[in-house]
C-alpha cells in the first residue's frame, strides 16, 4: 500500500495531515487514508467562519464503498476551504498532500504539540496495519 509520509508535516491518528505555518494549520487526509478509502467521490467540509473543536468531526470523505468522518486536529476557526477539491474529490487520490481541505486559525498553539511527527505516524501506520 502506498504510504508516502512527508517529514515536514504533522499527523493525527485519524489519518489527517497538517501543515503548520504560524497560527494557521492547513489540513488534509494522508496518502495512507486515500489509499485505504479507494476512489473518493465526495468531500464535505465546513463553511469559512465555522468553529472547530479539537478531536470532533468537521466533515466527511466518501469513497464509492464507504463514508469516513474527518476529525479536527486542532481547535479554531475555519479561515479557508478548498472548493476545488470539493468539486473534484478524486484529486485527493492523485495527490493527497497537494489536496488540502481546510485552513484553521488555531486558538491554542499547545494543541499542536499533541500531533504526531512523520516518524511517529509511520510507526502508527505500521502497528495498526
Amino acid at each position, binding site marked *: 500500500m502506498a504510504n508516502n509520509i512527508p517529514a515536514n508535516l504533522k499527523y493525527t491518528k485519524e489519518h489527517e495531515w497538517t501543515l503548520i505555518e504560524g497560527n494557521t494549520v492547513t489540513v488534509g487526509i494522508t496518502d495512507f487514508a486515500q489509499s485505504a478509502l*479507494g*476512489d473518493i*467521490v*465526495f468531500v464535505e467540509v465546513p463553511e469559512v467562519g465555522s468553529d472547530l473543536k479539537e478531536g470532533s468531526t468537521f466533515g*466527511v470523505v*466518501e*469513497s*464509492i*464503498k464507504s*463514508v469516513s468522518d474527518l476529525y479536527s486536529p486542532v481547535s479554531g476557526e475555519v479561515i479557508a476551504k478548498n472548493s476545488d477539491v470539493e468539486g473534484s474529490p478524486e484529486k485527493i487520490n492523485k495527490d493527497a498532500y497537494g489536496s488540502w481541505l481546510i485552513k484553521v486559525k488555531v486558538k491554542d498553539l499547545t494543541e499542536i504539540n499533541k500531533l504526531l511527527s512523520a516518524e511517529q505516524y509511520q510507526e502508527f501506520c505500521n502497528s495498526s496495519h
Partner: protein
Amino acid sequence: MSQLFRTQLFDEHVKLGGKIVPFAGWEMPVQYTSVKDEVLAVRNNVGVFDVSHMGEFFIDGKDAEAFADYLVTNDILNAPMRKAIYSPLCREDGTIVDDLIVYKLATGRVMICVNASNIEKDFAWMKSKQAGFECSLTNLSNVFSLIALQGPKSFEKLRPLLTELSDMEYYSVCETFAGGAPVIIARTGYTGEDGFEIFGHHQTIKDLWQKLLMAGVTPCGLAARDVLRLEVCYPLYGHELNDDVNPYDAGLSWTVKAQKAKFIGKEVLQNKPAKYKLVKLQLDKGIPREGYHVLNANNEVIGLITSGTMSVVINKGIALARIQIDKAPKDEVFMVDIRNKLYSAQLIKKPFVTGGHK
C-alpha cells in the same frame, strides 16, 4: 468470528495486489486497483470475478425438477431444459430464506447456486423438505470453484479457451469441457452485462482464471460487483432480501408463479401480501447509504435505504429503498436523511443503468 475460509484463488488475489476483506465468512478481494476502473472494465470491456465462495447444490433423480419446483416460487417444471431460472426460496409464511439460481442441466439433474452466507441454512432447509421426492440432494460447494466473466467482450475472450463453446442464449446453461476437464457454463451474471459463470473443479477454474488474465481480462473485486449489481437494480440477500420480507416486499413479484400446483409458501403468497415496496432513488447531491432514513414531503420517515452507492456510470447517488406501502407518497416526493440533512431524491422507474446482456 470463526476461522475465515479462502477460495482456491486466494493466492492469485494476493499476488495481484487485491485488497482482502472478510465477506460472508470468506476472505475475498474487495478491489484490485480501483472500483471505478473495475466497474468500467465490465461495462465497456470485460472483467472476471472470483465467486467461488458461493454454494453449489445438486439434485439428482427422477423427481429432481419437481423437488426444485416445490422448493422455489418461480416455475422450474415448465422452463426448458438447459435453462437457468432465478428465484427466491421462501418459507411457508412467504419470507425469504435466500435467493438463488436453479440450472436445469439435464433430465433428472438440477444444480442450484446459493449465496455463500446461506449455504448451511439453505441446505438444512432443503433437506427438511425432501420427503416424498425421489432424488438426492448434495452440497458440493467445497468441490466447486466459480468465476464470473462479465462484460461485452466476454464471449470473445472465452471462445479461444473453450473450443466447444457455442453462442449460448442468455440465461442458458451447458455442461462442456475446458482443457479436457468438465465444466458447467451458464450465460448468467450479476452485473447486467453479457457474460458467463463457469463452475468447475478447483484446478480447472484456476487454470481458466490465469488464462483469462493473460488474455487481458481485468480482475474485479466485490466492491465493483456491488456497484454493478446496484446500477442495474439486482437485489442482494441481507440487504433488499432477508428472513423478514417476502418477494412482494422486495420487488420480486415476477418470480412468484402462484398458478403452480404446489410450492412452499403458495398459500400465503397467492394473496400477494406486501407490507413494503422496493423503490429506486437517484440523488443529484449526496450519496445514499444502507440504513439511511427515507422521508416524504411532510418529513415523516417512510422507509430505509437497503443499498446505496455512487454510480460510476451515471455519477450520481443511487439507492434501493424499502418503503412502507401504506406510507408510499402519491406525490412521489422522496427525501433521504444523510447525516441529519435532507437531500431530495428522484423516484426512478427503470434501472439506473441499462446493461448490455443478450
